Each structure stands twice: as C-alpha cells, then as structure tokens.
C-alpha cells in the first residue's frame, strides 16, 4: 500500500529474524496472545464503560464507590464472583450443567482467530519489504470460520437452559435457539453481500480491498452506489445484536419474565464465564463488522495527524465505537415482544437482505465485462499447507 507509507508504524521495519525467532512465522502466535489477552482483560473495562455510559444516558450517577469514578468496581465484582460459593441446584444434569459455560465461552474466543487487527512490515532476507497481517489464522475460509463458531455458540445457552432443571431456564434456552437460528439467516445473507462486494472470504483480503479511503469501505462503497452497502451493514448490525443476545433482543434472559433466563441457576465463576462469553462474542462480532464494513485497520482518509495513529489503534477504536452503539441501544430501546422479534427477523430483515444481495449481484454482473474469455476467473489459489488450521501461516504477501 504505497499511499500508506507515511505512518510511523510503517517506518518500523522488523528484520526477518530476531535472534532465533522467525518474525513472519511468529506473528500468528503473537496474534493469538494479543486476541485472547485483549478479550479477557478488556471485559472488566467494557462492563465499566457500559455502566457509566448507561448511567449518563439515564441521568444517574452510576458506579462511584470503588476507585475513581467507580473504575475498580468491575474488578471488585470479579473478585467477588471468584470467591462466591458455587451453588449446584438439585436435579441438574451434571456434566452438561458444568460444560455449558465453557461451551458458551470457547467458540466466542476461537472465532477471534481469523480477525486481522493490523499489519507489520518485515524486511525479508532477500531485501524486499513485505506487509504481514497481524492475524492468528490467515486462512481463506476466515469469514465462514467465524460463522461456524457463531453457530456453535447457541449450544452453550441451550444446554445451560436445559440442564439447569428449571422451567425459566428452559424457556430462555428455547427462546435463544429460535432467536439465534432466525437471525443467523439474515446475518449470513448480509455477510454474503459483503463477501460479494469484496470478492474474498479471507478477512485480510477483505480489509486490504478497502484500503484507499472512506469511499471504498464496504458500508458506503461507491462502486455499488453506497445504498446497498449501507442497507447490508445495517442488517448485519441488527442481526449481530440479536445474535449476541443483547438488548433490545435479550429475550433469552428477560429479567421481567424469566428471572435471568438460561443462567438463572448459575453462580460464581460459571456465571462469570457466561458473562465473558457474551462480551467476547460482542467483541468478535464488532471486529467482524469492522473488518467487513468499516475498513479494518485503515484510517478514513489521509490526514497528517491520523497518519501518526497506528493501524491497530484504528481497529480497536472502531470496535469500541460499535461497542458504544451496543450500550446506546441497551440504554434507549425497550425489549421487543417475542412475536415482534420473530416478525422482524423473518418478515423484515430476511427479505430485505435478499433484495440487497440481489441488487449487489446485479450491479456486480453489470460491471463485469461480458466477454467470455475475460470472464475466466482470475483468482490466485492459495497454497494450502498440510494441516491448514494447525500449521504455520500461509498468506505472506
């Protein structure tokens, strides 16, 4: 990206070998540590942000006792949860009861593996400089992998609801499975629109294709006359909120009718793991939205001040903006009624997503030359390694 050479981060060029470590091969391991570390340490901060922002919006004080502006409140809560008694209700299905908090958390964390959050530059032995994306798994099924992990997440909630031996929990679990299946369709179709606009499933390629400036970001892509991108990204954002079971779609845990839904019977660290899973999936969904619609780690356009902000800061900033939108929604919108939720998912979002997909496909077809010879697809086939998910990274371009 020649037009991106101005930033100071781009001036830092790593050698290919630092001591015995091959930098290019070490990047995925570093990225894994970054993603897991970031998600696990930012959750108390997110909870604090949520409480303070909601308090400001609702004209309350919010947390203000532990630490300055209640900053340490989340940490105190964490310590409390850690030392709380672990209550196991009578008649639970024990293995599943203990497994489901883990099942709720692990897919959310592992979905983060394919989300790229920046680049570093490496000078190879041959002397050429290459950009290495900071991503744990630079695989060409990146986006489908995230979808697969998201589809596994529902098990944590459904099984928790079923194994707790509690009617309210079961109702929460059933609602959740219905809701997540319904909104997965609209979300997949919106993602498909984004894939069609980007021409790749690899999230690194998707982000790089939006590099030049704001007008090339998928949510307002001028190539598709802005409107389909806006509609598809809006559909994705709505479905994303429903998929992560957040207000106004938090039917599975609706306090007023189901006590706490699927996690009514969970206490101490098991409850904390559900909490972590929810926030991890929020972060991953926001990261995916950032990569697919909002230009990943790139600044909106070149400006002398922004050039000094490194790429990963842009990425984190965009993710945090989407998290803020989550909190904003929670503070302002009332919970949907169940039939209204289903109506919105099946009768509004799904047809709208289909129409948008059709429009984007039509525009794409019109922009493709009709000459048959030139329509032969020019895709570079990635050279897969023997064990693609477990071995070293492949895409060093």
């Amino acid at each position, binding site marked *: 990206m020649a037009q991106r050479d101005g930033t100071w981060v781009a001036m830092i060029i790593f050698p290919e070998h630092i001591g015995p470590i091959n930098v290019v091969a070490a990047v995925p391991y570093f990225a894994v540590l970054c993603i897991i570390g970031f998600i696990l340490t930012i959750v108390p901060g997110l909870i604090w942000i949520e409480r303070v922002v909601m308090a400001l919006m609702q004209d309350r004080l919010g947390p203000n006792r532990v630490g300055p502006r209640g900053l340490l409140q989340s940490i105190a809560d964490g310590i409390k949860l850690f030392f709380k008694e672990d209550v196991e209700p009578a008649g639970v299905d024990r293995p599943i009861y203990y497994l489901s908090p883990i099942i709720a958390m692990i897919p959310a964390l592992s979905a983060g593996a394919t989300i790229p959050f920046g680049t570093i530059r490496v000078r190879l032995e041959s002397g050429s400089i290459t950009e290495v994306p900071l991503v744990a798994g630079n695989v*060409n099924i990146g986006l489908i992998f995230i979808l697969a992990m998201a589809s596994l997440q529902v098990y944590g909630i459904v*099984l928790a609801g079923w194994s707790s031996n509690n009617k309210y929990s079961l109702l929460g679990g059933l609602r959740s499975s219905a809701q997540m299946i319904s909104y997965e369709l609209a979300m997949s179709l919106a993602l498909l629109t984004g894939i069609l606009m980007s021409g790749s499933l690899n999230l690194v390629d998707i982000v790089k294709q939006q590099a030049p400036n704001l007008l090339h970001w998928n949510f307002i892509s001028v190539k598709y006359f802005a409107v389909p991108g806006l509609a598809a990204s809006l559909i994705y954002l709505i479905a994303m909120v429903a998929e992560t079971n957040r207000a106004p779609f938090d039917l599975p845990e609706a306090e007023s009718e189901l006590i706490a839904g699927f996690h009514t019977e969970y206490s101490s660290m098991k409850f904390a793991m559900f909490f972590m899973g929810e926030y991890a999936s929020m972060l991953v969904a926001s990261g995916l939205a950032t990569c697919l619609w909002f230009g990943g780690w790139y600044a909106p356009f070149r400006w002398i001040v922004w050039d000094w902000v490194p790429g990963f800061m842009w990425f984190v900033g965009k993710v945090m903006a989407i998290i803020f939108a989550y909190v904003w929604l929670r503070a302002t919108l009332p919970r949907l009624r169940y039939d209204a939720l289903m109506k919105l998912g099946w009768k509004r979002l799904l047809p709208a997503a289909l129409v948008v997909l059709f429009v984007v496909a039509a525009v794409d077809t019109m922009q493709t030359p009709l000459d048959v010879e030139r329509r032969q697809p020019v895709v570079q086939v990635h050279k897969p390694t023997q064990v693609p998910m477990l071995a070293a990274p492949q895409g060093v371009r």
Partner: protein
Amino acid sequence: MSGQIALFWLLAVVSVCSALLVVLHRNPVRSALFLVVNFFVLALLYLTLSAQFIAAVQVIVYAGAIMVLFLFTIMLLNLGAPNALTDTRSIQKPTAIVLALAFVTILTGTGMVNSGMAASHASSSTLSTGGTVQTVGLALFDANQPWLFPFEVTSVLLLIGVVGAIVMAKRRI
C-alpha cells in the same frame, strides 16, 4: 508426518466412539450431543485433509443448524428424561447388529478398507490443493466441468423441499 498420523488416529477414535455413543446412550439429549461431537470431529478430519471449505460448511450446516433443531425438538417434546425412550421387545437391535456386521464384512471382503487407506496415502499431494473455496467454486461453477447442472438441479430440489414444508405446515395459504 507421524504427528499427522497420530492426529488422525486420535480424531478417528473420538469420532467412532462418539458415533457409537449416539446409538448406545439412553438419554436422547446426550445422544444428540454426541452426534454434534461426531460432526465436529468429522470437520476436523476434513481439515487435516486440507478440505477447509467442506470442514467449515460441515460445522455450519450439521453441527450448527441441523443439530440445534434436533435439540430444540427433543427439548420441546420433553424427551430429556433418561429411560424415556427405552425400546423393549423391538427387532431393531438384532437387525442393526446383523446389518452392521454384514456391512463391515462386505467392506473388508471387497478390500475397500485397505485400498481406501492406500489410495488416500498415494494421492495426498493432489488432494491437498483441492479443498479451498476457490477450487471448490471453480469445480462447481466452471462451464467446462460437468457439475454445474447437477448442482443447480440440487438447488431446485431444495427449493421444492422448502415450499413443500411451508405447504404442509400452513393450514391456509
């Protein structure tokens, strides 16, 4: 290479055990869960064969969508209680055992088990380029390949299935 073989055997043992438990477990919810495990391990096996796309689709479609519906139905019908479905005096069990034995005998008799493993060893280098999204897409939609028509016909078949389900579920259309 030995690590890969160790991984294969680990996955193979887990998948066969979970498949057996699907049939043998008495609790329907547990059975369904073992089926999820089986599908997931199968996806991992696809990954070791570099069939990334098929692996992801396996997880999305089978583990993520179909099995959730299975669980949903089981929970809705409240079949969760153990021994709820114990099937006494049924000819299913002996029939299943006889059929399974016959299947294994035929497979080994025709030498498919051994030759299949030998073949996968021989062609592993050619297989390793065949599983990415690009190659699968090119194989399916390339006009020079014979797969485009069957693929499109399958999609029409699925559409008919969807319409049929709606017709049967709705009282008045």
